[in-house]
């Protein structure tokens, strides 16, 4: 016993002594000119495997043995910096990195330690803003989601749309966040463009496999979009004018080195262009806008405050006028006015408690709403007027408080932990009708049915902890655990979600990674269309519908033996439980009042192999990705979904090839190209004729018969898009960029929709389908000024 006590004492003293011999270096890594913090910058101890990365706010902390040390700071697209230090006590070092003169080459984020090849986690990709700007875009609208579609394991949904279907998951299984706040409606113009304005963005990180424990609530992917903080030193901005929209970004200091702002706006003007070409009695109008604003204030080296605001909205208007009667004495005016969009606001406070403990507190609000107003006004001779109007609303309102901590006790450990509480308020549908008949002098008012009559409140609580642990210089392990609670409709669901990532540096050139992630999802998007509709409704789970769950296993090998090149292969298997599908024939309803009765709960599985060959540096950069994938769903025999037979999931495509090439001819001219190839996606087509029996009179009627859900493979799709940028430095220190893009350059007739061919009399052809191509070859141009 005596020996044991003595031994323990010696151990405690040794540990304490060991702690006493360590010092912590911490601080922020920022751009040397703008003081914009750099997220995910690498900090390494030269000659050692010790190192860390800056977090989402640019803060890093590294605990080392006291004494001499050389620290290396690096970040993609920036000149690395080395500092020789004599460390005797805890030290704060804020480092500024200078951007490389790369002839503006596209930065491919491959050498990062929190994303990409060197990260412990798998399937984590940082997409640089330059990459987004250099991806040829539809109508010149550079788009983060369209860039993500080019990554292996990502499907685009309906051809030409900015959908996101990751590793066999559904479209509502992606958590897309703007400055940490989930965005419910992520697209404009029925899914053609996302709501993210490239000029406002600082960094986009995409997760599809190893999900950090702090991210929860969706099954298949996380897209974390961070906006620019604003230049602390200089005023500068960007202005772009394109075919569809114009964009403006302006940022600068309010108080130098203390307070900065960033303001971005985008608005479309298609309606104004098209209005003169519309008929007199019919007027359509469509516009959208996005507004990003951010204030950043540095109280001290230890305290910072960020205030972020985003508002985006789509507006669709239609107005018609009919006249009839012998002398056109009757007039009817009718139309719709629809607008929908998100408003997000967040306030974040960064506080450094100690050099090893960084904290971030966030309060945020998120509001999505859609309003559809219809009207019909009939005017008859004698002043008789009949007016009818209806008002349909759908909304979600979230209030969130979140606390996140980064604790770096030793170089081998980076511990992240925190908690979040969200109060959701869903109001999926409410509707009111109003009738006014003025001829009789009688006013009739109907404001009746609201479905449901009140909002659906839900409470979500989340705790998480994760340790990025370097076991040996070649072996890293990241165990994580998230625990979530969701209370709705008098029922509380809980989910324990373990995460584990392992990275083994086999040789200098070869790395092997493995990952396991468990995810839970508590809300669903009710959608029945292949395109994003404003009428799609987010609804929470109910007491009868359990949360969706997913378990994903991934394994990958990576080779970096060729300088500037990266080769990887990743395989995954995803097991999905409690997934929802509309029962056969039910999707058309699309209302939320009794939505749980329209869906069935089943299982799914997805598996795939993803190959990636990427060139990271030089005049020509880009990648070639190939994905072999399969995704299916299965429901019970009595579920009303495909008679219980397994079926291919929507947008299940067996083969996908994506080629991205960015080439710099000179300082003035660069050319970007993408080529996407998908083998045919699964679709439901009535291939035979059968009968149905009328339940009232027992008569038979011949109808087209669908043997199975997603029984048909559409033709393959392939799209080449090109973009040419011509730059000119102007005398006023501004830069002018002309971008000419061609979407679908060789005019491939890809199927956007498919339906049975009809003849001139409305009869259906028994052996032909009509393939509808929405996006043929579309050239566009954008003029941008940067100053």
């Amino acid at each position, binding site marked *: 016993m005596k020996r044991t006590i003595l031994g323990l004492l010696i151990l405690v003293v040794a540990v304490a002594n060991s702690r006493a011999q360590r010092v912590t270096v911490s601080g922020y890594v920022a751009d040397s000119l703008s003081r914009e913090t750099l997220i995910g910058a690498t900090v390494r101890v030269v000659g050692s495997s010790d190192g860390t990365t800056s977090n989402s706010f640019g803060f890093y902390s590294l605990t080392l043995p006291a004494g001499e040390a050389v620290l290396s700071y690096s970040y993609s697209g920036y000149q690395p910096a080395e500092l020789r230090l004599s460390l005797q006590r805890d030290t704060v070092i804020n480092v500024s990195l200078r951007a490389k003169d790369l002839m503006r080459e596209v930065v491919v984020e491959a050498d990062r330690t929190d994303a990409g090849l060197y990260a412990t986690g798998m399937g984590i990709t940082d997409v640089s803003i330059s990459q987004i700007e250099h991806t040829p875009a539809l109508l010149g609208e550079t788009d983060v989601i369209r860039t993500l579609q080019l990554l292996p394991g990502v499907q685009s949904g309906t051809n030409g749309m900015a959908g996101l279907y990751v590793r066999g998951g559904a479209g509502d299984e992606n958590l897309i966040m703007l400055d940490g706040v989930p965005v419910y409606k992520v697209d404009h113009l029925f899914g053609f463009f996302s709501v993210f304005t490239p000029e406002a963005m600082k960094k986009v990180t995409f997760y599809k496999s190893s999900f950090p424990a702090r991210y929860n609530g969706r099954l298949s992917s996380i897209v974390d979009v961070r906006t620019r903080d604003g230049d602390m030193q200089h005023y500068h901005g960007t202005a772009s004018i394109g075919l569809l929209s114009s964009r403006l970004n302006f940022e600068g200091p309010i108080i130098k080195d203390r307070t900065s702002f960033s303001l971005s706006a985008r608005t479309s003007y298609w309606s104004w262009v098209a209005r003169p070409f519309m008929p007199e009695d019919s007027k359509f109008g469509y516009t959208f806008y996005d507004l990003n604003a951010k204030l950043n204030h540095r109280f001290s080296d230890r305290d910072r405050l960020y205030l972020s605001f985003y508002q985006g909205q789509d507006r669709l208007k239609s107005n018609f006028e009919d006249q009839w009667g012998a002398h056109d004495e009757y007039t009817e005016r009718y139309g719709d006015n629809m607008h929908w969009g998100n408003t997000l606001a967040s306030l974040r406070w960064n506080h450094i408690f100690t050099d090893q403990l960084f904290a971030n507190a966030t309060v945020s609000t998120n509001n999505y709403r859609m309003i559809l107003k219809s009207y019909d006004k009939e005017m008859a001779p004698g002043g008789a007027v009949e007016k009818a109007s209806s008002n349909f609303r759908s909304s979600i309102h979230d209030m969130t408080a979140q606390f996140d901590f980064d604790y770096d006790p030793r170089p081998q450990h980076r511990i992240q932990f925190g908690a979040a509480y969200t109060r959701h308020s869903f109001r999926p549908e409410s509707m009111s009708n109003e009738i006014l008949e003025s001829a009789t002098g009688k006013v009739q008012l109907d404001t009746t049915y609201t*479905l449901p009559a009140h909002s659906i409140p839900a409470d979500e609580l989340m705790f998480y902890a994760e340790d990025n642990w370097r076991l040996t210089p070649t072996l890293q392990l990241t165990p994580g655990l998230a625990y979530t609670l969701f209370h709705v409709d008098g029922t509380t669901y809980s989910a324990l979600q373990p995460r584990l990532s392992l990275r083994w540096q086999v040789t200098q050139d070869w790395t092997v990674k493995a990952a396991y992630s468990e995810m839970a999802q508590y809300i669903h998007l009710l959608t029945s269309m292949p395109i994003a509709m404003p009428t799609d409704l987010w609804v929470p789970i109910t007491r009868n519908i359990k949360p969706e769950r997913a378990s994903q296993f991934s394994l990958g090998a990576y080779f970096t033996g060729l300088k500037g090149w990266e080769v990887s292969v990743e395989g995954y298997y995803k097991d999905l439980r409690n997934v929802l599908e509309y*029962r056969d024939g039910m999707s058309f309803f699309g209302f939320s009042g009794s939505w749980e*009765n329209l869906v069935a709960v089943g299982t799914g599985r997805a598996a795939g192999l993803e190959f990636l060959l990427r060139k990271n540096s030089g005049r020509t950069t880009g990648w070639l990705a190939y994905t072999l994938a399969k995704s299916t769903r299965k429901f019970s025999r009595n579920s009303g979904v495909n008679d219980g037979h397994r079926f291919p999931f929507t947008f299940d495509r067996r083969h996908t090839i994506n080629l991205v090439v960015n080439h710099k001819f000179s300082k003035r001219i660069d050319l970007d190209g993408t080529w996407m190839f998908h083998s045919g996606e699964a679709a439901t087509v009535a291939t035979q004729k059968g009968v*149905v029996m009328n339940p009232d009179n027992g008569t038979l009627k011949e109808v087209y018969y669908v043997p199975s859900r997603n029984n048909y493979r559409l033709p393959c799709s392939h799209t080449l898009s090109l973009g040419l940028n011509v730059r000119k430095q102007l005398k006023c220190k501004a830069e002018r960029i002309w971008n000419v893009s061609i979407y679908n350059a060789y005019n491939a007739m890809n199927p956007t929709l498919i339906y049975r061919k009809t003849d001139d009399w409305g009869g259906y052809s028994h052996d032909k389908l009509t393939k509808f191509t929405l996006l043929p070859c579309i050239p566009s141009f954008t003029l941008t000024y940067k100053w």
Partner: protein
Amino acid sequence: MKKTILLLLSVALTTTVACEHDIEIRTNGEQQQLSLHGYLSADSAVNRLAVVMTGLKQATDVHQARVEVCVNGEFREKCKAEVGEEGRRYLITTPFHPGDRVRIDVTTTDGKHHAYVEETVPQPIRALKDVTAQLVQEHKFLSEYGYTDETGDAFELKLTLADNLGSNDYYRFAAPLVESMTVHRYFDPEEGYIEDAESVVVPARFDCTQDPILMEGNTIKPSSDLDMPTIGNVINRYGVFTDRLFRDSEASLCVYLPLTFSLSHADMNYDYGTVVTLQSGVAKVTVESITESEYYYLKALNTSESETYDENSDLTGPIRLPSNVHGGTGYVGFRATKSIECILAK
């Protein structure tokens, strides 16, 4: 510069045009399916089953199928075919009772196709009572095609239902059968109305759009003078509903029977499609207990036949109708019914 912008703009606008092309349907490996259809009632002495083979170009009757009926695991009957006005049907004379487990096996004579359906006959609804019919004038109907452009006199039919206890139940409000009636027939504008008295059985069209149970909470006001009554809603023509809103208790239904309707299905000596105006009569009001799968089948069928859904060209794609047939397709419903008579008088 100005010229360049105008040129680029015009090129962009003129080329942004969607295209359509025809492609052949690939049907390689498509198998024909044995398709069974029928609505079999525990209260009918004879039930009829249609046996059809799906096909790439057309569906065809199966002439000499072997149809065998088992009840609660015991073989009861090998059915014979009969060709009536509605085509070939296999007659099932085996009586069923609520709670019986019924299995019907169908095999083609060449033995290549075999399909079966197996269901439990549901329990009839606990009670129907307090049925009344009152004339209302100038009722604004949602027409058969879902538009609010029809106004006329109607019988407001009210009925109280008592739900079965301790179970999730699915029901169908069948179109009321007008068993005897006095009608006015519109004959000629100059001669005016001619009164006829007939004894017929006519399924009456009914408007249930204001009934919260039949519309499952999504009622539609007849005063809504809008072309589309409500977003994504489909009028419940087949009258299927659940007990979700009145589980283990009672509820009232309210539907409207238009006085003016077509006799296209009536067994009368009128020309096809003759329009008559109901003066008085007796209606048989029936509520059928159906299975859960039939509830969803009829909802899907209703949607596929609704005017707001455009078969094969709707963005949602073609509707796949659910099936309870193993080894084949189609739907065979099993019902237990309860009826009550209602006097219709102006």
